[in-house]
């Protein structure tokens, strides 16, 4: 009913099929309730998960495909949560990978029930979280920006950035420096000098 689902908006809805799955013990950070859902776990309005263990897959190779087909096109995020519980993973995992990929499912692997449970919890908890924590974080102070730029050149480290900054005074000074001046900086060896110099002085495009 409407009331029921409103009450459980913050809970994971678990299909009755999952009764007895030891995985349920490990969903602790989020509330979960049994409900009549097509998927195994309803994680949000648009996201759901199917659970499969590789051992089960070996016994019933067609199971996953039929479950996916049942879902139809009702969800944006369709997770296949795969418990890797066999030693010789290559073949069953390949089949599961292939089935999920070709039928628009995102495959997540867990190597323990704890891990599988944590995926379910996390997806529920992070339902509305922004992606900031996995986006490029840029400190905006001068030194971090300088470091960010200069460390694109291979093997240039933070210490070198400070050395270069102190020696040449400004970034334009660094970019316009001669090979000899670069070589005078302590800690900057032959290779680094050449890399720095080439980066600054070789044209962007080698063929005009």
């Amino acid at each position: 009913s409407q009331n029921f689902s409103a009450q459980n908006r913050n809970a994971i809805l678990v299909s009755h099929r999952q009764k007895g799955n030891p995985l349920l013990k490990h969903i602790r950070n989020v509330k979960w309730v049994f409900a009549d859902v097509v998927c195994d776990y309803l994680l949000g309005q648009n996201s759901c998960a199917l659970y499969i263990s590789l051992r089960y897959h070996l016994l019933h190779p067609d199971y996953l495909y039929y479950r996916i087909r049942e879902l139809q096109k009702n969800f944006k995020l369709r997770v296949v949560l795969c418990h890797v519980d066999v030693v010789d993973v290559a073949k069953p995992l390949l089949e599961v990978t292939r089935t999920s990929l070709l039928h628009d499912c995102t495959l997540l692997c867990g190597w323990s029930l704890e891990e599988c449970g944590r995926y379910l919890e996390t997806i529920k908890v992070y339902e509305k979280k922004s992606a900031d924590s996995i986006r490029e974080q840029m400190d905006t102070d001068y030194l971090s920006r300088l470091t960010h730029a200069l460390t694109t050149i291979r093997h240039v480290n933070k210490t070198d950035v400070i050395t270069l900054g102190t020696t040449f005074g400004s970034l334009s000074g660094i970019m316009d420096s001669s090979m000899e001046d670069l070589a005078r900086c302590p800690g900057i060896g032959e290779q680094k000098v050449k890399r720095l110099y080439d980066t600054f002085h070789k044209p962007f495009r080698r063929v005009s």
Partner: protein
Amino acid sequence: MLPFQEQIIAELLDEPGGGLVVLSSGLSLETLVSALLRLHSPSQGTLLILSASEFQKSSVLQCLRRSPDLQSTHGALSPVPAEIPGDLPSHHRSSRYTSGAAFFVSPRILIADLLTSRCPPSALAGLIIFNAHQLADTSTESFIVRVVRSANRNAYVRAFTDSPQAMVAGFAKAERTMRWLGVRRLHLWPRFQVQVSSDLEVSPPEVVDVRVPMTGAMRGIQGAILGAMDACLKELRLTNKVDVEDLTVENGLFKSFDEIVRRQLDPIWHTLGMKTKQLVADLRTLRKLADYLVRYDAVTYLKYLDTLRVSEGVRSVWIFADSSHKIFEFAKRRVYQVVREGLKLIGGAGIGIKRKRQKGDNREESAGGSPFSKIGNGERGIDIGVVLKEVLEQAPKWRVLRELLEEIEEERQKNVFSGDAKLENSNDNSGIILVACKDERSCMQLEEFIEKGSQKVTQEEWKKYLLDKVESLGLRKKNKKMSQAPEGFGVLNAETPVGRGENTGFNSISQLENDALLTAASEIINSAEVKAVSESTSDAHAETKRHGKGKVGKGKARRCVEAVLMSGGKNKINKIMDATKSKVEVKSTLHGECGVVDVGGLEESTDDGPSSETVAHKHNLLPDQTVCSVNKPLPPVQLYALESGQNILDSLKPSVIIVYHPDVRFVREIEVYKAENPSKELKIYFLFYEDSTEAQKFEASIRRENAAFESLIRQKSLMMIPVDRDGHSFGLSATKESQSLVSQNAITRKAGGRIASEKEMQVIVDMREFMSSLPNVLHLRGMRVIPLTLEVGDYILSPSICVERKSVMDLFQSFTSGRLYNQVETMVRYYEIPVLLIEFSQDKSFSFQSASDIGGDVSPTNIISKLSLLVLHFPRLRLVWSRSVHATAEIFASLKANQDEPDETKAARVGVPSHDGIIENDARAENYNTSAIEFLRRLPGVTDSNYRALMDGCRSLAELALLPTERLAKLMGGQKAARTLREFLDAKCPTML
């Protein structure tokens, strides 16, 4: 060529399939290769030289240009190999591949050309592979060998390496390398091989070993560094993550130590705590410090330490260790000391040092006669004020070098007078004196030193140091209200105030010290004034020095000197005297004829302390010294940086070599050079710091090389020789297997009974991915690998499937850097089925973390959280989990089974905004200065939409640095962005020191 070198060539030519040559470093690998090149004739086919470093290339060319001692068998000019650069238009490249000449080519380009049939394998005579120790089963070179051998059974592969140590790293490395190269013969040529040693010892050069004692402070620093290293190693052992056996301080001195540690830790790198990672980084830093101690002068060393403290300060473990405290302390003492005006020594000295050196403390107290408590001292200091005393310790090797040069010149003068006896000889002898040191920097400094004398050089460095200081301290004062931190941070205090009870006292002392530094700096600025002052006080000054005892003086400067002498300074001078004496002994045993010079040196060394004025005094007081250290004629000297790797012995033909920084490789080069020119007189001086890590390292590197060869010889005797040297059975079984598997899958998934096409599968692979092993394995599986430069994704399996490949470590890193988010974002934008491939490595566990590591709560830093977040934000992203490279290849085959083949031209255009003037072609990576572009894109104000215009507007970054704002605004399409960029470029870099 020496007999043993001819022998190597003969043995190599004996085996048509080629072989792997391992020889001691410095035994002129390039000569061997150039000999092989001379023997090459175009009729045999094209000869390609792979993986040669720039230095190796240039020295091969040098060897060839020298008058050939082997007649080219075909009468033609000896072939000088050209380069096949990546930016050469493709038809030019293919004509070169078929020309029959010899070429240098990078493996990445060659494999791409082989795969795109620009390079027909049948046109090749063979391959010469440098640096064979860097090979791995899945490396591009072995890929190349396989492709070439499968189409051309007659091609030979001759591989060389001169780092035997690397050939014994890992299990049966030599044998496996031979298998990857498809060669059957292993040629071992250690320095101790009978023929090699007899060849090299026919007329050995005259060698003089000079052991230079280090100063007390240097020894102190070295001891402290080794102490800190030991502490780090112990700590590392405690983590139980590494095999202890190889982790010794001695190994820690070598670069290869990093490899030992990384090889053990890499598989579990993502599971390590911050602390363990930091320990590994710290060990690297400490090794550098030990190295720089003997290479840099005192002031530069201190400067480097200051820089280190700023950049590493917060994270490092070692910086807070007790022994590292000493490193800073001693390093500072080599440069300056801070002296209280009232006959008190504060200096080079936080409270910490006082506590540790009870003696010094006592003396200080008695000298000052003031029974203040320590904190009281500091507080008093504010009222009294302090004076900075320059110490400017000079590298002991400098003096020895000067003496050697003087001696050489003297001898030469004598010879000139003594007549023509040696005249013919001197015709032959260039008379060139070669000083070999480690890097360009030391070269420049030594040059200045020889020209201007040691005081001048250190003074110059000191001035620079102080000026930097003024800026940073001045700056800091301005920012004072902003942060309390700086005092314990960038400033030159040896103490970190955190967690110390003596905060107040300490801070005031460091404040005093800074003030003193500022004063000194301003004095330097008005250096003329300084000179005047020093001259007026020099009388008293010199007196103090001679007697070594304090009298109550009148002038300010004088009192300072006394203070130094009274408290610990005396000790130090004695030490220096001892040191010089012992050096005299060493030297006289060597030459027995350098009395006068050394006495001078000895006096000079007592002079070292207050050296700012020494130049001035000398004229007044110590005429004898002036003569020997200033006026004595020095012979012209050539300087050579070992790092530059050029082979200059043959072109310069020196008659005296001073090895300023000993290096095994260079020693061998000298031996070879001498053996090649037996008639030439050659005298060699080795300068070692006595009991230093430098000497230890030198000896250990010989030991390690010998041990490596012994192990290789043992391995060779037990080796299973690979039979499939023609490369035919290489990939065959694998190909069959994969085909059966693919077709099997095709049957299970055939849509509507469609018959799986027998056509060869194709995968488009990004050029950069050829660094990894997957393209190689895909090829092994029987797929056609099409190299292309891709803007989006790493592998294109079909028009709709695009794969971004991440090893587990890459995955963690690119989550942290945020790069993964961007990559996935673009993939999702351009492809129907964007795939993130997470590839585990075969030899480590197939999981991110054990169940116990997961923890009780959802934590944002956990990989599970990051992956979940990624998946939530990109519901269309497909994940593929692969056990190993080989499993990946299988998954790719299976995913492709009922898909169309990818389209090259489309794939190359994806993600590249169509832009007038840019023609996309397959050699993009080679045509662009990619690091410059990446650099450009990270500058503030530069965006995805304007960076191309900037690249069009100026040729290089150096040019960009000079563009005015108006021009930038025009290019960047906006005043605001242009101003942001211009301001960033010109911003005064805050001095951290």
